[in-house]
């Protein structure tokens, strides 16, 4: 089988033009130093210059953004059929080696192959071949990054997941769906009025959001693939802050129809909402706990906005945040261990992380205008928006705050990010 594969490869090698990319395409700007990073040598994929996307660069950027890897170029031409010189790889302090190739097929598609090595033991850790059209080369690179990540860390990779965000240019508001690195963005909705609070369904096929297109906030659910959408909450007053139950059957929303902003559940198809919170003030930004039994939400019932928790079936309301007088935008990690939120400290809005087991709270960022955190589906990264040098930006950070990365995307006025779930197998 190996022989067949090699012969095939030799056959396709006539399309190979160059080994070294002409220019760097890594637009993800990673900063910070992690303590325990796996050093990995990533060889430019043989023949990747024939493709408009360079898999090795995309994989390297993905892995570095995770904060768990440090990548280098082994400096010698290698592909997935090479028998590497592990002594020299180890001399570069690399514990792992990724090799691969990109071959353009006669029908115009690309055959992308990779092989991962344990450079310490000289062991083959496996590989795969993908045949795809040019527009899916990025996706393939993200899938390779996922497989490398899972093989070397034991956790599922999130690089082939998707994110949603909103941009504003002039009076044009656009809801985008993009790859987890912010690239490959596709417009799902454009409107002359604001769009906020996009929220992925647990299946990753629908987005709930708030649109002001009818001169008031109304909650919609939008099928991403077909573009079909439906009104889920359009009651008298304001309708906002949609977030899905873990089953995807219902949503929590904030409605002002009974006076004041209060949290309700509503069927994902619409219908009669059921009131969950009872206060004379503001209750909003509700999110389900990962097991669906409780909600975390923001309330000003104590005089300043704080995060509270209450069972969805009714029961005591428990205050969760105590430090400072402004704690909003709760986001729970899918593994149930962490609560990310925005806390105002000395007039600055900063992303914080609470460990739910200990109630300890850690600030994560150096920026001042952080907003709307959401977790990667493997609970290892947080996506949020902020301002850098007066311009809006989307960022990811590791849970220790040590590695932050600015995502690619529209140049300005980019906000309201939300990280989608793992793709369905």
């Amino acid at each position, binding site marked *: 089988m190996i022989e067949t594969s090699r012969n095939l490869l030799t056959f396709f090698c006539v399309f190979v033009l160059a080994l070294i990319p002409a220019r760097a395409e890594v637009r993800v700007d990673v900063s910070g130093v992690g303590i325990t990073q796996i050093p990995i040598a990533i060889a430019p994929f043989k023949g990747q210059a024939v493709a408009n996307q360079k898999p090795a660069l995309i994989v390297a950027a993905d892995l570095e953004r995770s904060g768990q890897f440090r990548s280098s170029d082994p400096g010698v031409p290698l592909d997935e059929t090479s028998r590497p010189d592990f002594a020299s790889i180890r001399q570069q302090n690399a514990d792992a080696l990724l090799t691969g190739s990109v071959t353009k097929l006669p029908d115009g598609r690309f055959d992308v192959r990779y092989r991962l090595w344990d450079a310490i033991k000289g062991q083959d850790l496996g590989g795969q*071949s993908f045949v795809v059209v040019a527009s899916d080369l990025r996706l393939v690179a993200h899938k390779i990054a996922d497989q490398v990540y899972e093989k070397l860390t034991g956790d599922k990779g999130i690089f082939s997941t998707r994110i949603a965000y909103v941009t504003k240019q002039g009076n044009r508001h656009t809801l985008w769906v993009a790859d987890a690195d912010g690239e490959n963005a596709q417009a799902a909705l454009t409107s002359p009025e604001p769009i906020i609070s996009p929220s992925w369904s647990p299946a990753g096929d629908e987005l709930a959001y708030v649109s002001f297109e009818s001169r*008031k*906030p109304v909650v919609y659910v939008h099928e991403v693939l077909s573009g079909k959408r439906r009104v889920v909450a359009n009651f008298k007053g304001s309708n906002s802050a949609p977030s899905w139950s873990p089953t995807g059957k219902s949503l929590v929303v904030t409605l002002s129809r009974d006076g004041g902003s209060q949290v309700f559940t509503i069927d994902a198809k619409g219908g009669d909402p059921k009131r969950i919170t009872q206060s004379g003030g503001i209750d909003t930004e509700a999110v389900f706990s990962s097991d669906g039994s409780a909600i975390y939400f923001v309330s000003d019932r104590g005089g300043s906005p704080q995060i509270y928790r209450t069972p969805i079936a009714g029961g005591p309301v428990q205050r969760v945040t105590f430090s400072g007088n402004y704690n909003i935008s709760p986001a729970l990690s899918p593994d149930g261990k962490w609560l990310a939120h925005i806390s105002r400290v000395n007039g600055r809005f900063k992303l914080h992380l609470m460990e739910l087991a200990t109630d300890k709270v850690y600030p994560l960022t150096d920026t001042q205008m952080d907003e709307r955190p959401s977790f990667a589906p493997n609970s290892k990264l947080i996506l949020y928006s902020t301002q850098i040098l007066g311009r809006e930006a989307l960022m990811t950070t590791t849970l220790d705050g040590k590695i932050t990365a600015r995502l690619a995307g529209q140049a300005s006025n980019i906000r309201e990010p939300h990280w989608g779930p793992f793709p369905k197998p």
Partner: protein
Amino acid sequence: MECPLSKFIYAFFLTTLLSACASGVKLNDVPVEDKSGSAVSSAPVPAPEVQPAPEAKSAVAPVSTVTSDNLAAGPSGVTKVIYFDYDSFLVKAEFQSAIEGHAQFLKANPRAKVSLEGHTDERGGREYNLALGQKRADAVRQSLSLLGVSAAQVESVSFGEEKPAAQGSDESAFSQNRRAEFFYR
């Protein structure tokens, strides 16, 4: 190397080979259609249609249309913007006469309808600001209610920080953005 790991590696190697051989098939597992550019963009959602104006509905009755137009203008000579202090939902005394002007107009014109649109400055989270803007709109609605305006004529909604009246990130802009507006329909 002892057996379990070797077995694992062997199994993995086999799996890898199999998947490599069956690469064409394997790729079908990849949700390519989700990603290939045409998926989302092939069915782009057009910009939302403009809602039919209420006038269009009543356009068959000319007299009603004229009246409606007049009602949509609201009371003349009365400000339609109420400003608020930072972090406050209190309708200040200086706006009481304006509120009374709107209340008189609404009571004199029972078919007039008004949206009270609450706004905040840009500081803080968008959803929390939406709720703060709602508090401002609700405060004005309560003032109207105390003056005897029917609840059916009034809807209070919020735009949060999304529709600033003034651009900029200084107190001068902020103070113009912390407001509730009367929008007659």
